[in-house]
């Protein structure tokens, strides 16, 4: 008899923090206590709070354990499973054993992630038991393709890959495009630094994506589809392959699905790691075996896509929404969210925020609620400074805009974008010029090199930013930087170049004073840019222990042991901070501005 179920998170984050070892330890403890038949361990997809992994949820009572180590297994089995006393030290918060009592979970609204962390993604039976493939069955047997499209249109679903194009309209364009052969492509080339929602969905609920694609294929009139997934996601690829083969066996993919005469085959294509292949035309070129380069649109893929045929291309999260809309109806879906942005959005919270991980919230939630209620705010002793939303194509928004609702239009209006949903929280230790430089380095490196503004423009912007962070910038540089940013934004061929300047433009808009401090005062206010800071030994606190002198790699520190204070020769100092890290008395401080 099964008495308990242990849902063990087996997303990539929890696996890398040791979920498999925990499972092994649990299994051996269970066997040792004769509980092997009574407790079942289910490996699930991502539960969300990635930084606290490995995490597990124990049913029926719903106890949530965090940071479980293999050595905790025996205690969990003896204390909890045998004696019925939850292990208090493994709970997230004292007195709150179940997830519903934690704001991280209670403020979320899980639609796309409803199966993630709940079912075993490698067993199609669990997906079906949770209502899976009902929507496909309904679409195929009760609805015409036009009715499916109408339902998606009425739901207000918009593309979750970043641009927010109305999904139903896109489907209709492909449906109406002349041409016999049509294709459906799932864009799983997730590449934004810090974004991993598509990976989590593919790992935690792969059938939801397949079902969404099959419904889309029926609606637009396609018989084959591709999932373009990055090769760096081996677990997602394995689970997708497994899911495809299981669905084929049950007749839910392949020929004559559910004996309705409708056929749909899906193949995987692995991306070789170019960020630009997330752009739809570059992705299509890559599937066709050509160099991953975008081409000018129009014609759009809906008119002429894969091998010149009308092609529907949607993102993972978009497809994962489809079954819920067909199952629960457009009205149910459109009741969530705002006037123009319906449903939920999955965000990857990262950076200086307590609860890093994956969260799903209704559209229209404010940035403050997202970061402070769900995310738990910035860690103790630090102050919130900015939030970078939308990855390298997005923008940095300051504290004053925390009450902006998260929807496509509001974010764009303030110089950020929804993007794929990467949210990086920055505290007062971040230099905004450096942050802009970081993201621009990424896009300049990932530029495919096809069009002039993106290829040369991003590099030239980068060299200007390098001048500014090394203290050689002028106010004329700032003007040049803005001109270039506008050029790259308006004249680049594809979305990569058109959005690459956003981090620079938004930091110039909201944190211009920091740029000016670098230029006019030769100081990095946050104390980050090595050329614009200096270290100082406080003579009052220095005890002459010699630790700093020994740590210094350039011999910039001099002094005699036992006779403080020690001194730093600023002309030799490379501002590496090794002395500060070595000082046991906190006598070395880092100060903005050049010295010496």
């Amino acid at each position, binding site marked *: 008899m099964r008495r308990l179920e242990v849902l063990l998170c087996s997303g990539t984050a929890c696996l890398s923090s040791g979920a498999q070892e925990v499972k092994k330890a649990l299994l051996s403890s269970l066997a040792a206590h004769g509980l092997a038949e009574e407790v079942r361990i289910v490996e699930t997809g991502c539960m969300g709070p990635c930084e606290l992994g490995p995490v597990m949820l124990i049913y029926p009572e719903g106890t949530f354990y965090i940071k479980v180590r293999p050595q905790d297994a025996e205690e969990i089995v003896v204390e909890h499973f045998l004696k019925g006393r939850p292990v208090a030290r493994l709970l997230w918060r004292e007195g709150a054993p179940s997830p519903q009592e934690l704001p991280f979970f209670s403020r979320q609204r899980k639609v796309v992630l409803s199966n993630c962390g709940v079912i075993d993604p490698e067993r199609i039976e669990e997906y079906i038991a949770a209502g899976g493939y009902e929507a496909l069955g309904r679409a195929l047997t009760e609805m015409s393709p036009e009715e499916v499209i109408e339902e998606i249109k009425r739901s207000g679903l918009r593309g979750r890959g970043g641009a927010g194009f109305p999904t139903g309209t896109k489907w209709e364009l492909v449906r109406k495009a002349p041409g016999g052969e049509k294709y459906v492509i799932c864009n799983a080339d997730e590449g934004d630094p810090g974004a991993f929602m598509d990976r989590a969905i593919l790992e935690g609920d792969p059938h939801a994506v397949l079902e969404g694609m099959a419904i889309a294929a029926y609606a637009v009139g396609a018989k084959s589809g591709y999932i373009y997934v990055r090769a760096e996601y081996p677990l997602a690829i394995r689970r997708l392959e497994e899911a495809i083969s299981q669905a084929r066996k049950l007749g839910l993919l392949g020929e004559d699905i559910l004996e309705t005469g409708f056929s749909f085959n899906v193949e995987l294509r692995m991306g070789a790691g*170019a960020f*630009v292949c997330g752009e739809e035309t570059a992705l299509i070129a890559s599937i066709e075996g050509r*160099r991953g*380069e975008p*081409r*000018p649109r*129009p*014609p759009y893929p809906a008119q002429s896509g894969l091998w010149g045929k009308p092609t529907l291309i949607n993102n993972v999260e978009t497809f994962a929404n489809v079954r819920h809309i067909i199952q629960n109806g457009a009205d149910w879906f459109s009741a969530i969210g705002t006037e123009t942005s319906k449903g939920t959005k999955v965000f990857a919270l990262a950076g200086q925020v307590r609860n890093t991980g994956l969260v799903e919230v209704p559209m229209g939630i404010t940035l403050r609620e997202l970061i402070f209620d769900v995310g738990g705010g910035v860690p103790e002793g630090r102050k919130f400074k900015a939030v970078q939303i939308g990855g390298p194509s997005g923008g940095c928004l300051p504290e004053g805009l925390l009450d902006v609702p998260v929807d496509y239009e509001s974010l764009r209006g303030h110089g950020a974008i929804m993007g794929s949903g990467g949210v990086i929280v920055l505290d007062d230790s971040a230099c905004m010029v450096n942050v802009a430089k970081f993201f621009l380095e990424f896009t*300049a*490196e*990932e*530029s*495919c*090199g*096809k*069009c*002039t*503004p993106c*290829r*040369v*423009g*991003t*590099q*030239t912007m980068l*060299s200007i930013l390098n001048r500014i962070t090394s203290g050689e910038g002028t106010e004329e540089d700032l003007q*040049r930087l803005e*001109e*270039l940013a506008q*050029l790259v934004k*308006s*004249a*680049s*061929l594809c979305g990569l170049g058109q959005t690459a300047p956003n981090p620079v433009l938004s930091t110039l808009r909201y944190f211009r004073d920091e740029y000016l401090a670098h230029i006019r005062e030769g100081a990095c206010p946050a104390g980050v840019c090595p050329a614009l800071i200096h270290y100082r030994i406080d003579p009052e606190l220095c005890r002459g222990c010699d630790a700093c002198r020994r740590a210094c790699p350039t011999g910039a520190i001099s002094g005699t042991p036992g006779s403080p204070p020690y001194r730093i020769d600023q002309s030799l100092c490379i501002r590496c901070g090794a002395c500060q890290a070595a000082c046991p008395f906190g006598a070395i401080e880092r100060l903005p501005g050049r010295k010496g």
Partner: protein
Amino acid sequence: MITLEIDGRTVQARPGQTILEAARAAGIRIPTLCYLEGLSPRGSCRLCLVEVANWNGKLVPACATPAEEGMRVVTGSQRLKELRRMVLELLFAERNHICSICVSNGHCELQDLACELGMDAVRFPYRFPGLSLDASHEKFVYDPNRCVLCGRCVRACSEVEGAMTWGFAGRGVNTLVEPDLGGPWGESETCTGCGKCVQACPVGALAERGVATAEQEKRPQVLAEVTERRPRV
């Protein structure tokens, strides 16, 4: 026929014709660099960008955008002039375009564009990447320092000659046109020595050996002449 408006003039185009083709047929000049008649359009240099007034002023490459019924195209606004000049400055700053020591001096499309668009100075730092010259071919020389990555040689080689010797390698600012996945051109197993790439090259990146600068004038129109004589499939 499609009727559209270019710079306030009513212009006709056949279905499938691009904005550029419609404009040229009507005698309206739009600057181009990566475009070459006879080759597929690439839309990458961004010099032929035009505004479509009734698409919210969206910028599209004239060479690669099909003409559509009712389109209102602007080819020479102040915004476009500034933008083209800046793109040209970036192209000049990217590699080594010192005209006085270039084989194409006096008959170079990049140089002509600079004169046409009034580009009298480059405001951005020159990158001077210092790439190595390939003089291994018995008939031609390839100097990547002069290359503008327009891809005309790549397309001439694959679309017209069918040899596919040239291709792009690397990405971003490190993109290079290379023969046979890299390696000396002279050792290429695919190059037929036809010289179409040299004729297609708008600048001094591909040149004939043993020919003086003054005699180095290219005939890029040869690509269109060759393709026009071919039977249409």
